[in-house]
């Protein structure tokens, strides 16, 4: 949980913490706040300064993406292994594009084609991919906490691409980046951000609670009470016992004067255990429609981590409306992942372990 303290042998100097990206004239400015984290497993350990550093590094990566040839040699010769135990297209491809834009060597392993199906344990798999040359590991797993087990045995950096219900740090960071980019004033501070839908099963919601409250947003969770189980107690205490947020099943209260509305995916299996009577009932009561959105601020941003069930948690016309930032999220996702890979590579260099120095 606290990867900062034991993982960094010494404070990296400013130049080590921010190695210039060759051939990028707008490389991240020398940082007064060094990146201290060997892994990115959860958002809870990231401070406001850490978030700021990620945002500024992402700005630089956005500039790279806008070039005719969106490729820099920052991670040349480094092996980034992408190990996904759960089906995913957009997140996996986003990581792959990010790593390739930084000129990393990318190895893709999908659980269905790996030895996982032969009963190989996660620990064995991690040791094997490390022996095969993995220096940075991007991992998605259906069991909450699995990346912590990986980080315990892996010699390089682990970047959590989503674990169970627990965390999806890169999604939360790209969400924050998108909001800062699109909101007037470039800040989420004091802005009303509504996370709408299946909060209980959502790693996106949990990670956004940490990042958005750290950045000073007024966070509202909204959904059927069955899908908010346990969050009222957390909201009352606040993230880190101080950063309070709101929990409500009243969509009217939630959407009133909202600055950002983020709808979450509803999965069909939620009906099996009696959490919801039907998708029809959910869409009628909690679906993000044009009429409902009218209660929010006129220029409120509409977001969705994808993949969408159009017509269930979000109406098709809302998803493609002028207020929608869903495709910006996808583009920013690549930039944020580039930034994190870049920052983690800097830590690895500072420690002198990954490249053998």
């Amino acid at each position, binding site marked *: *949980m*606290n990867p900062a303290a034991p993982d960094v042998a010494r404070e990296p100097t400013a130049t080590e913490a921010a190695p210039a990206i060759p051939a990028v004239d707008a490389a991240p400015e020398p940082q007064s706040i060094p990146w201290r984290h060997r892994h990115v497993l959860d958002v*809870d350990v990231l401070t406001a300064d850490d978030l700021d550093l990620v945002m500024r590094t992402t700005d630089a990566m956005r500039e790279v993406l806008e070039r005719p040839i969106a490729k820099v040699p920052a991670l040349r010769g480094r092996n980034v292994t992408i190990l996904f135990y759960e089906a995913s297209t957009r997140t996996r491809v986003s990581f792959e594009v990010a790593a390739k834009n930084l000129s990393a060597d990318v190895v893709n392993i999908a659980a269905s084609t790996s030895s996982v199906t032969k009963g190989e*344990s*996660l*620990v064995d798999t991690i040791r094997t991919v490390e022996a095969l040359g993995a220096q940075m590991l991007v991992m998605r*797993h259906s*069991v*909450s*906490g*699995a990346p*912590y*087990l990986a*980080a*315990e045995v892996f010699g390089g950096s682990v970047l959590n691409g989503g*674990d*169970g*219900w*627990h*965390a999806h740090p890169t999604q939360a960071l790209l969400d924050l980046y998108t909001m800062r980019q699109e909101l007037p004033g470039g800040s989420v501070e004091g802005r009303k951000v509504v996370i709408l839908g299946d909060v209980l099963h959502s*790693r996106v919601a*949990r990670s956004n609670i940490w990042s958005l409250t750290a950045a000073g947003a007024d966070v509202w969770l909204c959904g059927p009470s069955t899908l908010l*189980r*346990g*969050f009222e*107690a*957390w909201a009352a*205490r*606040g*993230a*880190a*016992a*101080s950063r309070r947020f709101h929990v409500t099943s009243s969509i009217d209260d939630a959407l009133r004067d909202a600055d950002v509305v983020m709808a979450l995916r509803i999965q069909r299996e939620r009906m099996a255990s009696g959490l919801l009577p039907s998708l029809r009932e959910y869409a009628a009561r909690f679906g993000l429609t044009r009429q409902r959105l009218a209660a929010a601020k006129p220029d409120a941003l509409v977001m969705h981590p994808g993949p969408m069930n159009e017509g269930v948690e979000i109406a098709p016309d809302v998803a493609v409306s002028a207020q929608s930032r869903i495709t910006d999220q996808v583009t920013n996702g690549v930039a944020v992942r580039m930034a994190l890979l870049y920052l983690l590579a800097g830590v690895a260099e500072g420690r002198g372990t990954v490249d053998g120095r």
Partner: protein
Amino acid sequence: MAADAPATVSAPPATGSDVGRTVAELDLSRVWLVDPFAGREGAADLVVRGGRVQAVTWLDGPDADGVDPDGVIVAPGFIDLHVHLREPGNEDAETVASGLAAAAHGGFTTVCAMPNTDPALDDPGVLARVRAAAATSGSPVELLLYGAVTMGRDGDRLAALGELADAGVVGFSDDGAPVGSATILRNALMYAGMAGLPIVDHAEDSTATEGAEANDGLVATVLGLRGWPAAAEISAVARDLAILVDVVRDVPAARLHLTHLSTAGALDLVRRAKAAGLPVTCDVTPHHLGLTDEWLAGARRWAWDASGDPWGDGAIESAPYSTTVRVNPPLRAPQDAAAVLTALADGTADALATDHAPHTEVDKAVEFGLAANGISGVETALGVLLAAVDAGRLSLGRAIAALTSGPAIILGGRSRRATGLVEGAPADLVVFDRSDRWTPTAETIRSRGKNSPWLGRPLAGRVLLTVADGRVAYEAPEGDSAQA
């Protein structure tokens, strides 16, 4: 002996290979003796000759000067009502021999093993096999056995309760799982009541805990773990007690024992049932009184120091999702842990039982959600209780009673030894140094199950000697102390 002289433990030098040897001569001088059977604790001398207690001499006046409960303590051998020894079927995790060695290292001279072996202990043939393993081990630790309530612990068909009773089981349990069917539970209570034996229920409403991973609360919410509600235990206890009310009308000798209770609500129900005169007893574990669900988040502080929100007060010091703290029932919130400790202190909980549940690394070095439930705990129970005593949450006398006379009363006459330190009887005792600490590690614990949250964390109360049935069960090697 002169006043203020240190306690002495005088016996001929011995080595580890002497386990099983009769204690010919043992002189324990100026020790703090705690004997809950006699209802007494204080300075004493104790003499063992030929394996038998020859003399217990309580010291008073100047003779007792300088003898205090912070040094060497002698107590009757501990009794554990709830261990898993894994034999037959899972000898990689524990064998009868390794389990009894671990018990002796923890100061226990009697353990009661659960029947969830493979095959389950549901007929006298399996019982004979386990007893043979105990005899072969050479350990003098007394092994008592529970029989299964249902055949193969399937929850449907009553096991051969009468035959198992005749073969000497001390009760019946489907532990690991509750007796799910109310009808089976009623019939088992009535049938076992004919032999005066308890049904030991693992009280859990399984319909409320499907896929559950962590106590339903802040920690589970933040970590994204499937919630394990306290209500699943409380409602099961309420059901069990309601059935017991009915059963005792027909079978007054019927008895119910609820094991490893972990919630304030369940313990309140037991407290009221006892006040109403129902024949119910219960035990609690060291981990449910000493630890909380904060440990899943990576906090490493005692329950009585916990806030319930380790993110809020900077208590997180280790990585989250350690599978050593995955256990059934789960580690609970601080208020539940406090209720467990209160129940032990006020006698609502009759006994401390370890629920010693050894597992192999294969079953624990996996993702949290896939890991086996259980803590290897028979060697660390004393240290956890002493931590509660040191924190002022429990008296020393009550702690020792929960390890000795409390479980002895539940066993009735079915333990040959549970009588305390009686002159002329075979010696059954533990000697430990409360001022000395030891550090559980994979090397220092005797159990094959290294799945202990206390590995690498020093505990008070190093056991120096365990004597069972007049024979050496455990003797500390020289220089086995964590203190320099």
